[in-house]
């Protein structure tokens, strides 16, 4: 009686394994009339695009990139052809997978309101890999998301990095913990007697949390050095703040207004922690201090609405930051209503129309985004040894009337809808 059950279980396991895409060899040759490698030369300039080029992906990794005439493609390799090839796109600040498309309690896990500061919340625990918006952005070439807890609380939780595929979060994950998401300014103020109710309170609460984390770290260190001393009870919240103090996780601060951006600069100076400015509607007035303090910017989507905290946003800010040499990437940000997510391809397109050179604009969602997120060794450009993540287009990727024809992640075609 036992054997058939075991056999069924065994067969089921075989089927399951066979169905797992990771186990299949992922080879593909992608030909493009123009291939934008988005790699940089030794001098830090954008590499020229390759005309009549090919990207050869073997076992999920890029094994060759070059003119089709110069690359030997093994016989039998599946192939795709299109006009324009780019690296898979990276959304440098998304909430997709946590903030669902239906915008109801059932699919909204991007913000937890029980306390204004909860840096211990892991994005990994809240990510839904079957969220339809993942398919949506993937159909526009997006292969990597830096996603997680949304702006809207002083510290809302952590972010992480995924590829836009997989049946489980473990299939999708690239980096389990990336940043701690904070918000300064009107978007994270609480009403009535709840704190923080003012900007000054926001700053003092953050300072207090860092002081407590530092004291906790010192106690832990003392206990480690002295057997007589007991270690303090483990505190996940303090440990997460400690990771920021240790430089292991940057504090990504959403701030738009001039006052709030100045507070970001001050906080970074006080604590000498890695800080990333996210949003930054008025950051055009603080380009020099941002540069001097080494604070990169994950800019608001170019089409962000001109109201509320971001009322003074300019569509030329990306161009200004790039010209000044501030590291900058673009994120779709957070939307509370419709559209539930923006598409970074379209946001970079508008940046391109408003002052960015083509490859600088494409860089915002490829190479520069990967570098800013610290995953430049894996994604962001079409170079030998990197992940085989590719987007295929039937024309200028930024043109309104062009289409994304397909998306490839580590050699696997994950989308082939022309959209």
């Amino acid at each position: 009686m036992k054997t058939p059950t075991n056999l069924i279980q065994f067969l089921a396991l075989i089927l399951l394994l066979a169905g797992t895409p990771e186990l299949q060899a992922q080879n593909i040759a992608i030909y493009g009339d123009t291939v934008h490698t988005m790699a940089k030369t030794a001098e830090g300039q954008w590499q020229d695009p390759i005309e009549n080029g090919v990207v050869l992906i073997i076992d999920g990794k890029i094994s060759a990139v070059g003119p089709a005439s110069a690359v030997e493609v093994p016989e039998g390799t599946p192939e795709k052809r299109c006009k324009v090839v780019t690296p898979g796109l990276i959304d440098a600040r998304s909430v997709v997978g946590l903030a669902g498309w239906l915008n109801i309690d059932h699919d909204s896990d991007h913000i937890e309101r029980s306390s204004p500061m909860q840096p211990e919340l892991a994005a990994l625990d809240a990510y839904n890999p079957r969220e339809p918006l993942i398919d949506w952005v993937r159909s526009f070439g997006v292969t990597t998301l830096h996603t997680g807890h949304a702006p809207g609380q002083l510290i809302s939780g952590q972010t992480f990095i995924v590829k836009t595929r997989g049946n489980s979060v473990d299939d999708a994950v690239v980096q389990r913990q990336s940043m701690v998401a904070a918000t300064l300014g009107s978007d994270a103020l609480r009403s009535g007697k709840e704190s923080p109710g003012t900007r000054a309170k926001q700053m003092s609460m953050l300072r207090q949390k860092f002081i407590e984390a530092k004291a906790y770290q010192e106690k832990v260190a003392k206990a480690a050095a002295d057997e007589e001393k007991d270690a303090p009870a483990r505190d996940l919240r303090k440990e997460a703040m400690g990771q920021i103090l240790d430089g292991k996780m940057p504090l990504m601060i959403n701030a738009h207004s001039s006052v709030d951006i100045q507070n970001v600069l001050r906080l970074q100076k006080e604590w000498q922690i890695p800080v990333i400015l996210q949003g930054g509607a008025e950051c055009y007035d603080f380009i020099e201090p941002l540069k001097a303090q080494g604070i990169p910017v994950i800019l608001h989507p170019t089409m962000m609405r001109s109201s509320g905290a971001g009322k003074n946003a300019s569509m030329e800010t990306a161009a200004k930051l790039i010209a000044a040499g501030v590291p900058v990437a673009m994120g779709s940000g957070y939307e509370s209503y419709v559209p539930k997510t923006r598409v970074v391809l379209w946001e970079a397109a508008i940046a391109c129309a408003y002052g960015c050179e083509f490859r600088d604009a494409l860089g915002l969602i490829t190479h520069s985004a990967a570098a800013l997120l610290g995953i430049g060794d894996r994604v962001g450009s079409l170079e030998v040894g990197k992940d085989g993540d590719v987007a295929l287009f039937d024309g200028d990727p930024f043109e309104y009337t062009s289409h994304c024809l397909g998306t490839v992640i580590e050699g696997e075609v994950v989308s082939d809808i022309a959209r």
Partner: protein
Amino acid sequence: MSLHFRVQNRIFLQCFLLMLCLLISASTSAADVQAFVGARIVPVSSEVIEEGTLLVRDGKIEQVGPVKDVIIPDGAVRIDVTGKTIIPGLICTHSHIGWGGGGDSSEPIQPECHTLDSVDVRSASFMRARAGGLTLVNQMPGSGHLISGRTTYLKLRDGGTVEDLLVHDASGWPMGGLKMANGTNSQRSAPFPGTRAKSASLVRQAYVKAQEYQAKIARAEGDPEKMPERDLRMEALVEALEGKRIVHHHTHRHDDILTVLRLKKEFGFEVVLHHVSDAWKVAREIAAADAACSLIVVDSPGGKLEARDIKLENGAVLEEEGVNVAFHTDDWITDSRLFLRSAALGVRAGMSREGALRALTLSGAEMLGLADRTGSLAVGKDADFAVLSGDPFSVYTQILQTWVEGKQVFDRTNPEHLLFAIGGRGAGDDTAYNCCGGEDH
């Protein structure tokens, strides 16, 4: 002495005024004829002219044709637009610029309220709309009511009061439609409806009452003794029943769309369906009911349950079925400065270029009952147009100038105007508009 002085003074004053009049008339006669020469002109109502002249007199289009065929009168102001593209001014059939609201939270049916009384035409959002090439908007109250109020058609003239921007009908009344909504936005706690059937029945009851009011007026045959007491709410609904006020109906889900069509059939009002997320599912029914559609284009589906199935293909599907299609910004939902993009994404999803441009211009004018005055570059119509740097559907194209009735309201070379085109300090609005009037979207 004093009398002598006064007389002398009066003569001097009269001479001065006469001189001034002559000066003004001389300058206006020249300034009142403008020739825009050398552009690619896309009139929408007729064939594209590759190198054309648009002749404008007293704010109206006097002539449009190839450069070689249009004779420019002496004294006309000549504006060289060689290499540029001229299209009709964009018409947004559904806008919330200036944040004009309608009814309050007291009850679900308030057609007596009028956005004319609440819109702020000095809001930065009006300048941003001009920077987007818009020349006419339907300023709408929100969708948090079954009937949230009367809408206002506003020409984006360079004015500081709402009166400066109004559009009047032949009898001198300010023109506008009636905003209605169904689906979840207008469902709230009592006295608002809690279900779709209740929503429809409340609307039905209101129109039945209006029909009775209308009948009483008819029976009175002008006799003041027999006339019913004036009722602003009933008057607005009667205007809708008589086709004097077009119903602009917010609706998303396929069954809600069909409910609107059913009410249209029952009461005979003229209706434009707005947003119409599920249009692709019921395109045939919409075509059969001869209802026009004003579509929103958003960058991803969802955001709320009833917009889950919205498709970029809506424009193409409706065009295929022969439905009159317009686009709208729903500003602040989408940005008036990027209104061309909505239609361009329609083209991306299969709509014809001609249909998409018409959907930004002439179709919108038709849906506001203003196609005899604006919406295309045709002789006799208002000189409402935009001058572009190139293809209307390219992301790289810039809107260079916007003209309303022969007067320039946006000039990209003017730094004060440019600020609104690209954004920056002072180009935005302090508060975001709450589209739905309630807590729930």
